[in-house]
């Protein structure tokens, strides 16, 4: 029975592994950390309908139960290829031989430190969207690090995306809708807070996104201002002073807020470039894995027998990731059965 390696135990990895196990292949998941679920594990509610994230992760985990063996705490150090076999040297010293490999390494959130002028990790009340998710574990009002109820909060779009300065020209596409979702969740906890979203272009690309946007405007009075944040500094009372321009009025704009949330974009996963080189597959200008053809062969990489699924080949929402994972499983199936 052919053996397949799925590198990465996130949402994509779990789905591919399950589908492949259904097609009666023997599947190993090589997961760097010690838990499955990847980033989704750390999120509370998902856009656009606020389904709890753990519901998706648990559902995917339950599917897998003892159908797939999972090598936790493991990374691929070196890889070799003998005609159709792939030999992987893992970090726990073992070497495994596989007939096919599916890369589901996912993505890494942009390290906001690299936008120094936004004062991330310098001013305590500048946080990223993933840190804000932790506030949503309970329904208590959002407070600043000095335990002051947040009365004014600013969401900053495109942090580390569409930004040549940090080498990320690509748009991570899911941060806009995440900002609207999080803004609503903040509005629910701090009803009389003033909430601003500073955007360049709002990319509500999927179904029910525009409805969420309209709901944010009308039901929660959330304000959308077109202008890109230039700089954050701290005022005497440790509130944050933002400098922007209202591009629709063509005038500079200044305001003070209690909390700044940076909607950090997606970058290719940690040392995924080394993995790509090790496996001999090309990487795009945005450092995400490059499929052979972005229309019809999205899961097939340049190297026979190696496939890619999920955010490893570019930013995707969870729905798109799962669909991409299922298509990857079929590609593997047709590769192993038809050649």
């Amino acid at each position, binding site marked *: 029975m052919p053996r397949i390696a799925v590198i990465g135990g996130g949402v994509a990895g779990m789905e591919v592994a399950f589908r492949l196990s259904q097609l009666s292949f023997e599947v190993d998941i090589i997961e760097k950390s010690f838990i499955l679920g990847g980033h989704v594990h750390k999120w509370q509610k998902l856009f656009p309908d606020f389904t709890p994230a753990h519901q998706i992760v648990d559902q995917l985990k339950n599917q897998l139960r003892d159908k797939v063996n999972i090598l936790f705490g493991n990374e691929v150090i070196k890889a070799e290829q003998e005609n159709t076999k792939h030999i992987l040297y893992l970090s726990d010293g073992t070497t495994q031989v596989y007939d096919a490999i599916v890369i589901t390494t996912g993505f890494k959130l942009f390290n906001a430190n690299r936008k120094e002028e936004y004062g991330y990790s310098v001013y305590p009340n500048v946080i990223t969207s993933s840190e804000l998710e932790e506030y949503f574990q309970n329904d208590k009002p959002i407070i600043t690090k000095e335990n002051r109820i947040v009365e004014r909060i600013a969401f900053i779009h495109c942090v580390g995306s569409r930004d040549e300065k940090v080498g990320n020209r690509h748009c991570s596409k899911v941060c806009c809708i995440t900002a609207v979702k999080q803004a609503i969740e903040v509005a629910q906890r701090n009803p009389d807070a003033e909430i601003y979203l500073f955007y360049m272009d709002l990319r509500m690309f999927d179904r029910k996104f525009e409805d969420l946007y309209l709901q944010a405007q009308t039901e929660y009075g959330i304000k959308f201002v077109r202008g890109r944040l230039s700089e954050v500094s701290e005022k005497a009372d440790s509130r944050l002073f933002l400098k922007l321009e209202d591009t629709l009025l063509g*005038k*500079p*704009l*200044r305001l003070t807020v209690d909390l700044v949330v940076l909607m950090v974009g997606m970058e290719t996963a940690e040392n995924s470039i080394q993995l790509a080189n090790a496996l001999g597959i090309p990487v795009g200008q945005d450092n995400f894995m490059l499929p052979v053809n972005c229309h019809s062969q999205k899961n097939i990489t340049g190297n026979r027998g190696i496939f890619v699924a999920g955010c490893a080949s570019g930013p995707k929402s969870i729905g798109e990731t799962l669909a991409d994972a299922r298509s990857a499983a079929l590609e593997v199936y047709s590769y192993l059965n038809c050649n």
Partner: protein
Amino acid sequence: MPNFGFSIHSPTHIDLDKNYRTIFNYVKVKEPSIQKCIFCGSCSATCTASNYSAMSLRKVNLLLHRGMVQEVRSLTEQCLLCGKCYLVCPRNVNTRRIILLIHEALKMPLS
């Protein structure tokens, strides 16, 4: 004071800490659809008054959102209430009511 030959310009930025959105709040309570505006500008494009004045409902709406009221009076006065803006608004904002409410608010001594 000695003649310096120059004067210190006051800042022209929009200061959201100071600008009071009293008129916006007055209108929002009575006509919540003002919040649906996405400032796409189709109303200003079709506006009859824009042919002879600087009237632009998109700009008026923005000025209200930002609490900058000085310009609003001279702009909204040119409005003919013909309702073309309402017909083209992609968000179904009740534009004419907003204009009437602005006129009302400008008559009141709102701070």
